[in-house]
Every structure is written in structure tokens, then in C-alpha cells.
């Protein structure tokens, strides 16, 4: 019997008919001689991000014990409902130790032989295992939170351990779309994207499978399918290099959850940047798009982006450092938006950057910062211009003309 690892989200189940839909989808799989292995996520029931990047429960706003209990309970609920409809199930709890963290710090998740045996005892008898996926057990036997969409990673880990090749992430949407901006009438569904493109979309602020899950899948050559329970063959496949019709740009993303910081007039001496970013790292602040201005008069400006939720810690850290370094000051800007075009091969199409910048210029949109990789061009613009920029770029690159 073929095993199919499927991650499901609590947010998909609001009414009785949603559970009916799940039952029908699972029953259909069983009828085709497949056995579903369900990995459950219930830590972001609002679809919001409760604490991206947290490897452990420390620092979470929500009560960690309640989150663990909630996920355990939801596994039981699914189990009871499916059992009531004649599907044999067994729900596991976080403390059952299916997923383990190698250390409390690096967040590397494993599924050990012992855990696998526990699972196989269940699957060999045709019973559907239902496993909480947002937590791993830390070496000190405490549950460690795997971050936003952490269950994606658990599902991939399980596919790897079970020596399967495909991982299904069921959601309420048909798959991934060509933009995360609501209201674009010409959104395209993405059929296939590469691991690299998916990682760029994650970095650009799109709601795609977690970066750690995609990286792990890429390393193990596991294909990920994001789809609705009722349409597994549709949806978006995330896989290695995508061949076929060459579509250079796959998505245009908007991210308004970023703030721009500029430390002004920093002395131009070796070690200053190290000191600045060590100070931020010590506070657990992740930064990106770091730009240093051309040195003039032995001073320069260093600008970078942080997540808006880190702005309070960033203000404190930067003000302290500015004082210590004898800088001119620090300016903060929370009214910005990151607009990204994502697609493999951007770097090999010379015209793409000029088209992006021309489109924005044509709309009178000023670009404040730019970064580019082989698969994405990201522009920082005023938040007032963010949506107009996405509309214009989506129209240029994604719509048939």
C-alpha cells in the first residue's frame, strides 16, 4: 500500500461540510490503495504568523502549552470524526515523540528509527496516523515550536523517513498564485515552480510552503504539491528545475511587513559593520537587503530591512550602537513596501531589470532600494505605491497582451 504524507491545516475546517470533504478525499485515496499519513498544523488558525523563525517556544506571544494542547486536541478531533465515518485512525500527541530536534538551537528536525517503527506499526494495519506537526521534541524533552508553517517541514521530514517521493500540502486554495495581492483579477495559478523560485517567493513575503521545508525537500529531491483536498492532481508542484514552456516571471509579490533602517554617518573603519550587525544578531533580529553607501569623508550610511515586528528591538539596538559608534543618527521607515518579481532565469534575460524599472518609472513610483538575485528583483518603494507597483508589474509580466 502506497503511503501519502499530507499536511492539513486546522484553518481549513470551519464547518461540518469541511470534515465531510476531508473524509471523502481520504476515502478516495484509500479506495485507490493509498494510505494517508496526516500531519496536522493548528498553530496559525487565523492564517497569521504567530512567530516566524522561532525554533523553540520561547518568545512566542501565545501560551506554548495551550498551543501544544490545541494541536493534540485537533488531532483527536480529526481521529474521532474519521473513525465515526468508518476510517480507521490513530491520533498521536506531541509527547509521542514522532519528530525530534537534534539540538535545541539549530531546529534540525528528524524522525528517528524508533519513531518510525511506532508509525509503521500503525500503517501496516491500514490505520491512518494523525500526527501533530508544528512541534518537535527538544533534547531536554520539551516541545520546540517549529515556526510558522512548521508542519510543512514535519511533513517533508516524514516523507524522507518513509522513503517516499511526494509530499502533499492541502490547503483551502487550489495552489499557489502569481501574486499575493488581493484583488488582482488576472491572477494565474502556478502549475509548477522550482524549489529556488519557491524560496524566493517565501523571501518576498508570499504565503508559500516554509523555506525550511522547501530546502529539505530539495536536498532529498521530494516533490511538494500544494493543492485542495479534492484536487490532488491540480495545484502547484514544487520540484527541481522546471522544463517546458519558458515563463520567466512566475510571481509578483508585495510585502508590507518590512521596515527600513538607515544608520547615518557611520565611521568608515574595519569592524564597524560587524559591530552593528553583531548587536542586532544578539537581539535575534534578522536583517536583509543590507546596503552601504559609497564612503565619503571617512563616513558612510548603512541601510537595511527588518521585519516590522522587530522594530522595537531594532530601535533600541540601533540607537545604542549609533551612540557608541559616534554616528550622525538613525532613521526608521515603517511606511515602505517590498515589491518583488520572481522567476528562474531573470539573470539570463538582460531586459528584465530595465522593464521592471521602466514600468515603475512610468507609474511615477520612486525606488528607494533595489536588490537582485538570479531569481528575483526586489524594489523597496513607499507603502503608498506598493499596490500600484504590483498591479503594474503583474500586468506587464503575467498577463497575456
Amino acid at each position, binding site marked *: 500500500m502506497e503511503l501519502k504524507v499530507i499536511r492539513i491545516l486546522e484553518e481549513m475546517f470551519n464547518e461540518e461540510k469541511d470534515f465531510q470533504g476531508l473524509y471523502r478525499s481520504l476515502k478516495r485515496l484509500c479506495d485507490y490503495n493509498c494510505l494517508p499519513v496526516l500531519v496536522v498544523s493548528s498553530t496559525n488558525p487565523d492564517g497569521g504568523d504567530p512567530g516566524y523563525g522561532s525554533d523553540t517556544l520561547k518568545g512566542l506571544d501565545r501560551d506554548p502549552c495551550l498551543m501544544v494542547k490545541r494541536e493534540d486536541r485537533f488531532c483527536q478531533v480529526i481521529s474521532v470524526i474519521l473513525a465515526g465515518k468508518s476510517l480507521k485512525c490513530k491520533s498521536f500527541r506531541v509527547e509521542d515523540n514522532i519528530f525530534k530536534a537534534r539540538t535545541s538551537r539549530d531546529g534540525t528536525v528528524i524522525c528517528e528509527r524508533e519513531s518510525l517503527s511506532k508509525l509503521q506499526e500503525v500503517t501496516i494495519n491500514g490505520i491512518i496516523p494523525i500526527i501533530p506537526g508544528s512541534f518537535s521534541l527538544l533534547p531536554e524533552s520539551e516541545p520546540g515550536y517549529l515556526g510558522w508553517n512548521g508542519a510543512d517541514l514535519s511533513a517533508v521530514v516524514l516523507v524522507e523517513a518513509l522513503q517516499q517521493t511526494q509530499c502533499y500540502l492541502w490547503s483551502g486554495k487550489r495552489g499557489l498564485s502569481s501574486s499575493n495581492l488581493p484583488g488582482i483579477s488576472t491572477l494565474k495559478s502556478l502549475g509548477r515552480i522550482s524549489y529556488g523560485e519557491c524560496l524566493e517567493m517565501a523571501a518576498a513575503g508570499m504565503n508559500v510552503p516554509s523555506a525550511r521545508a522547501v530546502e529539505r525537500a530539495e536536498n532529498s529531491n521530494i516533490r511538494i504539491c500544494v493543492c485542495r483536498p479534492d484536487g490532488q492532481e491540480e495545484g502547484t508542484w514544487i520540484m527541481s528545475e522546471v522544463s517546458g514552456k519558458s515563463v520567466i516571471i512566475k510571481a509578483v509579490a508585495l510585502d508590507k511587513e518590512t521596515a527600513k533602517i538607515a544608520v547615518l554617518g557611520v565611521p568608515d573603519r574595519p569592524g564597524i559593520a560587524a559591530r552593528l550587525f553583531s548587536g542586532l544578531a544578539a537581539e535575534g533580529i534578522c536583517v536583509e537587503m543590507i546596503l552601504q553607501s559609497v564612503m565619503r569623508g571617512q563616513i558612510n*550610511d548603512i541601510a537595511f530591512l527588518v521585519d516590522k515586528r522587530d522594530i522595537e528591538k531594532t530601535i533600541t539596538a540601533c540607537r545604542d550602537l549609533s551612540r557608541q559608534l559616534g554616528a550622525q*543618527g538613525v532613521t526608521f521607515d515603517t*511606511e515602505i513596501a517590498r515589491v518583488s518579481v520572481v522567476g528562474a532565469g531573470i539573470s539570463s534575460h538582460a531586459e528584465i531589470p530595465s522593464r521592471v524599472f521602466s514600468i515603475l518609472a512610468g507609474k511615477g513610483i520612486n525606488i528607494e532600494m533595489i536588490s537582485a538575485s538570479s531569481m528575483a528583483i526586489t524594489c523597496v518603494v513607499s507603502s503608498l505605491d506598493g499596490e500600484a507597483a504590483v498591479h503594474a508589474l503583474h500586468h506587464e509580466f503575467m498577463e497575456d497582451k
Partner: protein
Amino acid sequence: MRFPIRIRVPASSANLGSGFDTLGLALSLYNFFDVLEVLPSGRYEVEVIGEGSGELETDIKNQIVQSYEKACGTWGINPLGLRIRSSNAIPLARGLGSSSTAIVGGVMIANLVRDVPLSKEELLPMMVDIEGHPDNVVPCCLGGMVVSCLENSDLRYVKLPRLPSDMVAVVAVPDFKVSTEEARNALPREVPLEDAVFNISRAALLSASWATGKFDNLPWGMSDRIHQPFRSRLFPGGEALLDQVSRIPECSGVAISGSGPSIIAFASGSGSTVAKYMCSVFSKHGLRSRFFVLDEDYQGATLEALSRSTTRR
């Protein structure tokens, strides 16, 4: 005079609500004026970097040079030509005393040419004379929160004790300029007696509270009826900001900074809640803005010798 030398001059926020043309606070945001080399008399080269680049004059018409020449002329000194690098972090024409920094910087450069340099306190009358009013240049030169009065050319001032270290000044700077002339013209020529009494009582309360550490009086002390009701209409979101920011629990008082359009608010902690709110109000009114979270600068303008390598073009 030994060059190169750097003059570091702080931003300042004047008025603070009730203290119209009287109160000013130096802030931890700085312009650097590097005097790099001496040139033949009458020749000036000013390189402007950062704020005001492309806008400010780069020759004898530059405000730093004008102030330098005015001071030298007053003292009967033949002014040397200079190459100056002006690295500006203080936004221009936003009510943060950018032009005052040029005046303070220019006079301090002239002071270096004197055989017997004067103290900063002795330089103040000259700076105030050039600026025309004391509320920015005095704190800019001396640092701290300063109460200043000017009668003809007589200047009296008192520098108040430090702002507590757990309080910050949050300054939201919109991408919008209000000219000083426009800001002056917006004011009525006559003030009703009750409004004058209102402001005198608030300005006295603000000064006395700052002097005695009773900072919980700031919201009262910073309220104003003389200029803010008129100037807040000169830029989008001004009236809404003054009305709404004062209601944020972390806010300990809010005012238009100088003649605007920047808004200054005092806050406890990191100031992020107040700052984000201020910028979001500007955004709602279609204005781009950024913010600074600043300490009180208590040193004022300072001099620092630079290494020779900084003179490279």
C-alpha cells in the same frame, strides 16, 4: 588654526508647543561640517552630502560660509578661503533646525581663525543675530533644553536639566516642505487675551516642570493656542496628528517641531508605538514619512580634529 577639523552640530526642535520662539531642545541627530583645507581668500568650495545635496549652495552663498564671513567681518578678520565638506543628516526645511546648524557651524569655524578664540557662550549673540531668533541656535550651540529671550540684541537664556534617560523624543518627518515664510504668514497678527494667558501658563508650566523633573506635566505644558492651530493646517495630517497622538498612552506630549511639518512627541520606552502611529497618520493623508527616535543632546556643537586622509576628494 589646524585643519582638517570636524564640527558636529545637533538638530534642534523649537517651540515645543507653548514655548513659541522661546523654547528649544537639542536632539541627537547631527550635521558634520568638516573644514578640510585653507584656500586663497575669497574662494570657497562646499561639498554637500546627504540632506540638501543638490539643493544647497556650494560656494560663497552657502549658509555656513555666509555665517563664517559675517563673523569674520564683525571681528575685523580677513576671512581665509576654505574647502568644507557638509555631511548632513538633518532633514532640510522640516523644522529641525538645519539652517541653525549652518549658522552655528560657520561662526565656530570663524572662531578658529581668531587669535584668542571665544567660548561658545560668547559666540551666542553673534549666532542669534544672524538667525534673528534664539530658539534654535542656542540649544544647537549649547545642547539641552534651553529657554531663551531676546530683546534687541540682549540675549538671556537658561539651560534646563537633562531629559530622563527613559524618555525619548520621537520625530516624524513627512516628505513635505513648509517654508518659514508660509509658516509665519499663517499666524494671525493679533492674539486674544485668553489665548495669550493660556500659552503663558503652559510655557511656564513646561519650563518649571522640566526644571524640576515633573515630566508628567508635559502634555499640559506643551499645549498651545498661538501657532499650532494655524500651522497644523499647512500640511496634510497635521491637525489629526496633534489631536490623536496625544491620546496614545505612551505619549508624554506632542507638538509641531519648529514651524513644521515635522512632529515631535515625547515617549517612554522605545517610542515605536508613537512613531509608527505618527507615520501611519501621515500615510492616511497621502504623505510619505520617516521617523527618528532621538535622545536629548546635552553637549551642543563640538570640535574634533580629523586625520589628514579625510581631506581626499
